[in-house]
């Protein structure tokens, strides 16, 4: 599981240290532009290309980490 890695990523993109595993990206000021920056970082760090809709369905570090882990590499 990469939950801690995704938490760190959310903190960086949202510039908000108070992110935990259950924080909702879009509820904490994350908009579509910032979302693309999470997805480019996920591609860089985990080698997984997710779509914008994947992120909408998994908007917390816990759920996004699961989605990342579910993609075969």
């Amino acid at each position: 599981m990469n939950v801690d890695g995704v938490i760190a990523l959310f903190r960086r993109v949202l510039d908000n240290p108070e992110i935990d595993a259950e924080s909702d990206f879009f509820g904490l000021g994350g908009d579509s532009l910032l979302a693309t920056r999470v997805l480019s970082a996920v591609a860089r760090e985990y080698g997984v290309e997710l779509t914008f809709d994947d992120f909408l369905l998994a908007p917390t570090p816990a759920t996004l980490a699961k989605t990342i882990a579910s993609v075969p590499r």
Partner: protein
Amino acid sequence: MRVLVVGAGLAGLTAAADLTAAGVDTTVLEARDRVGGRTRGIEVAPGAWVDAGAAYLGDRHTELHKTLAGVGLSTVPTTMDGASRFAFGGRDETRAGRFPPLNAVALGEMFDLLDELTATIRLDAPWLTPDAESWDALTAAQWAERHLRHPDARTFFPLFLGEMMAADPATVSMLHVALYLRSGGGIGYLNAFEGGAQQDRIRGGAHQVCERLAGRLGARVRLNRPVRAIQQNVRAATVHTDGEQFRCDAVVVAVPPLLAEAIDYQPVLPAPRATDLTGRGCAVKVQLVYPAPHWRADGLSGWSVSSTGPLLSTVDDSPPDGAVGVLTGFVTGAEAYRFAALSAPEQRAETLRQLAHLFPRLPLPIGFHVSDWVSEQYSRGCYAAVFGPHDWLRLGPRLSTAHGRVHWAGTETSTEYFGLMEGAIRSGHRVALEVLSSYEPVGRTR
């Protein structure tokens, strides 16, 4: 002390208001038959106004907020509820939210690169940014050619530049792109509606700011007086219009660089205000008026983005009282030049043809307004001047440096919020202080 202000837009009127408050004898000369510059209101229905020019503001636009409070104006939030419409590669589709049907990773990589470059900009002196010379030699199109591999990023980049800064990638310097994005608060802030630079509009229209500032200045503001020449010597300056001369201690030129460059200065300026490569902000605003904001009933926000014109994006611009529905379309970048050159019937036909795909359930509009800022004689572009290759290095260092008794204002002289209403107001306050501190009070003894 007597000061002449050239230009009755936000910058000039802010400066005039500050100078007048400090007891300076101030006269404002305006070329048009109206004040407001790149803000203008259109009354689309009795008592219902929309912005034909500058419109949006956010919380960080603190000086504009102070001005609004000072003249008794308030804001209304921009509504953005519902699904968006997208037309990319000939396919029309409806999607929740604002994200286009493009590869998100590719767009994220593009924003990462832009953000990285933007962060290196030295806002106090953009021409001293590391590698400024090479960034300024590069057009945005050349940058995209080198750095954007994915076709979706290449599709989106010109739309983003058009939307953010009304620039055509082929003609804008990459240093200017980075400066503009940094100056406005970064790509995230500049792009956002809620929590960003498009969070609010001014209730009743942005044009009222200048109207109210001018109202207080009364007869000090003189319309229909294009300034042709400014002469100065050690004792005084003289401003020439077509039939009049105004002698004064100092002049504040508060017009866009392309217009400031067209004035004849004696002695000449030590460096140009604009070059052959300095472009006009490429924006045409099209406003379609409907009996009601019908798209909302269909669950649509009115927001659309298209990869082909004329309207590269649309937004719900309905007045808050709901008297009518207004869809505002933005024609930007190279497309703005093409559209501006069409006849009025062609503009209407092209727009309605596109709308029939984007919003097929809409009736014919009851009002249709085209505001062509590219061709506008006394603006020569909007949102702001688009600096071309080498412009920042040539023009930048002297943009806000006085030439003897001639001082400069306008949103292009502010590296904070360059191109925005906020930048214009900040430049007006800055130039007023500069003038007040530059001249000894005359005719007063201690």
